[in-house]
């Protein structure tokens, strides 16, 4: 069965520190991969996506993610977090057909002053 795993439910990072959020997927073939961010009471906003090619993907708001086929991972990184980055982050995967994306359970990011 297809699945997306985000091992960390909560992560606390000091403002200005670097960030890495983990994501692992289990699919029959390499899926399309996405990271979304959700602020409280809001919908989801796409940060970045990976289809093929360069395994390091740049996104909005200074985020990047690296696809590692050997580890079935697609971890999200940011060199220096800002207080406004506090939110829920979701990793998602899809096969590109009409069916929807499979989401991980999300990682709640807390920023310490």
């Amino acid at each position, binding site marked *: 069965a297809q699945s997306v795993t985000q091992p960390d439910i909560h992560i606390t990072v000091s403002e200005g520190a670097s960030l890495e959020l983990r994501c692992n997927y289990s699919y029959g073939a390499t899926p399309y991969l996405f990271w979304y961010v959700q602020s409280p009471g*809001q*919908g989801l906003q796409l940060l970045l996506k990976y289809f093929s090619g360069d395994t390091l993907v740049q996104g909005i708001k200074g985020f990047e993610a690296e696809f590692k086929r050997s580890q079935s991972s697609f971890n999200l990184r940011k060199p220096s977090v800002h207080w406004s980055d506090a939110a829920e982050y979701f990793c998602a995967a899809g096969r*590109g057909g009409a069916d929807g994306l499979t*989401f991980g*359970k999300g990682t709640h990011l807390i920023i310490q002053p």
Partner: protein
Amino acid sequence: EADIYQTPRYLVIGTGKKITLECSQTMGHDKMYWYQQDPGMELHLIHYSYGVNSTEKGDLSSESTVSRIRTEHFPLTLESARPSHTSQYLCASSEYRRGSEAFFGQGTRLTVV
């Protein structure tokens, strides 16, 4: 900026009432989705559509129904609301091509009392 709108944003309603959650998009996307999200938890696909007159059930069983009479409109209906239906409902749309990302509305937070 994604143009997908959900109304109402918040709804508190009594048990047994019929409700319709509205979702409209102005991007001309063929694919539309409804996800259910409980607080602090992952998103579960409950309905999706390939296009006009197409509706399919998603991974999570739901007592709700959907219709797709127009490309831009994908309403979700609960014939008789129950407290177990209390949740956040997120509508999304995407292009019908491989790897296209989903654009999300801001969600409807439903509370059934």
